[in-house]
């Protein structure tokens, strides 16, 4: 297990994120880096995971080549069932998905995610539209737990998101239950700077790991609320040469990993 001398940030994020997936779990995979993470988890410690996409693919094996989108033909070739979005999203609503794995543009301390846009929606001239929810809202409402991967700076890690597209714990403890959500809410966030978990009592996101080259202070400076830090905070392990070798075969054109 030789630690690698050179690796990209996207590679570190992917490898770290994959460790949140346990073998045998049903994982609903969103568009973006989650597609790379899923392929990597399949190829390493989670060969028995079940991959679902909103494009409608259900797979017991990794795509033979990286799917760039959730309904890329590559997501379907050699799949186990391709019933469609109706079937995979219905599995979410039936409570059969262990991990909902999403990206986003902005997150707040209760893990609410914004992928609709920044600014004040009611003042149309000031609102910068992104793509919108896609399936992220459905995934995070009903998945047993939610794994999110997104870039970090003080405009993206905010006290309150400009627009709640995808519910985390809304305004704190009890909110999800009150609203009748069947899923357990966010469990882990991997950013471009570190790894976050959620306090089981307060439901607030706290720093659990910082990436090599980062520090708690730097991360706090790139977070707009008074971020709590685990007393056991550690530096994230550097990827090994063996891990990188597997990962680099997954995205040969560098579409996601750069």
């Amino acid at each position: 297990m030789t630690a690698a001398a050179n690796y990209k940030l996207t590679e570190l994020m992917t490898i770290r994120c994959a460790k949140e997936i346990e073998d045998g779990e049903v994982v609903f995979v969103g568009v973006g880096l989650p597609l790379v993470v899923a392929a990597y988890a399949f190829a390493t410690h989670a060969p028995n995971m079940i991959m679902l996409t909103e494009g409608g693919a259900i797979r017991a094996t990794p795509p033979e080549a990286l799917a760039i989108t959730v309904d890329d033909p590559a997501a379907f070739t050699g799949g186990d069932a391709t019933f469609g979005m109706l079937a995979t999203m219905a599995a979410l609503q039936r409570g059969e998905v262990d991990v909902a794995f999403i990206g986003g543009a902005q997150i707040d301390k209760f893990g609410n995610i914004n992928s609709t846009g920044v600014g004040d929606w009611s003042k149309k001239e000031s609102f910068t539209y992104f793509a919108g929810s896609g399936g992220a809202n459905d995934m995070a409402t009903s998945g047993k737990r939610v794994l999110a991967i997104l870039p970090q700076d003080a405009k993206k890690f905010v006290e309150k998101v400009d627009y709640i597209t995808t519910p985390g714990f809304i305004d704190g403890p009890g909110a999800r239950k009150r609203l009748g959500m069947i899923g357990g809410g966010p469990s882990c966030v991997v950013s471009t700077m570190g790894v976050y978990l959620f306090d089981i009592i307060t439901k607030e996101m706290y720093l659990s790991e910082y990436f090599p080259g980062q520090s708690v202070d730097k991360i706090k400076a790139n977070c707009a609320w008074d971020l709590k830090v685990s007393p056991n905070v550690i530096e994230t392990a550097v990827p090994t040469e063996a891990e990188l070798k597997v990962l680099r075969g997954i995205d040969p054109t560098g579409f996601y990993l750069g």
Partner: protein
Amino acid sequence: MDLDKRMTLKDAVAKFIHDGDTVYYGGFQIMVPMALTHEIIRQKKRHLTTIESSTDVGGLDIMVGAGCVTEIHSAWIMNWYVKAPYAIRRAFNKGHLKRYDISNFGATTAMMAGFMGVPFMPILGNIGTDMIKNNIMDLRIIEDPFTGRQTTVVRAWRADVAIIHAQKVDRLGNVISYGTRGVTDEFGANGAKRGVIVTAEEIVEPEVTRTDPDRVIVPYFKTLAVVHCPWGAHPSACRGYYGLDIRFSQYQGRYERHEELLPHFLDEWVYGCADHAAYIEKYKSKFGQAGLDRLKPKLGYTPSPKLGVDYGYHDPACWKGVPMYTDDRLKAFEEALAAKKGGK
């Protein structure tokens, strides 16, 4: 009944899409009805409302940029290859576009309700978000009459007319689509009140359709117009025929990005082309036949595919080392922009 519904792209759009219509916009991240998108722009249709779950490669973005669409109900609109819906962003900022956001399954469920002819349907998502606050046109919370618990419901969506692209269709209008079931065309199209306009890679005989009717997602009686249109989803993918044209989507996206540039793209690639065949000829003259050949899947990849369908293998490695598409206008604009930024 043997009613031949074949017609040109131009006639189909002129005859069946009217200003002010609600249009189901087919496809998802693939199978986007791009030839129909271009024709709607060419014919300067106005005040359209679109419904769909999610849509990629900037098809809806350029339709908004060209001034055809004033209201959108959707979960996700993007040109993923430039990571933004630029024209939509600008139109919303100027107050030219009403946007009603909903989750992907919310949109799908709304179209299923329309497909089933019922007024609304319950859903688990969207509650607790700003989507439900800002989109009471589509989303409400009611009391479940059986349990008394609060339940989120979506209004049924029914288009006036649906536009979709498929692999095959027969002259009667039986639409054959396979291999990418994330696309919600069966709900959006069948739910359309007047019917469906379909472009397809191939026209087959009805006798061929009837050997495998499992593949039909829209039966002939829902179809208004049948248009033979190879490459009709380009630059999105049509499984078994061509993969995503990532480089062209990026190229188009760089035009979408700047308000001053987009009209040049529309002039060159839409208004400047009489039809979709002319668009493809233009592509070949600018980026070469090799650009199209790269998109073709390896056929025969799955040994003895069932039901005679050859899905092909769309190998993403075809993009390795392929340089970005550009042209002189785009280069000059982007260099001037960079110089301006550098000068500040």
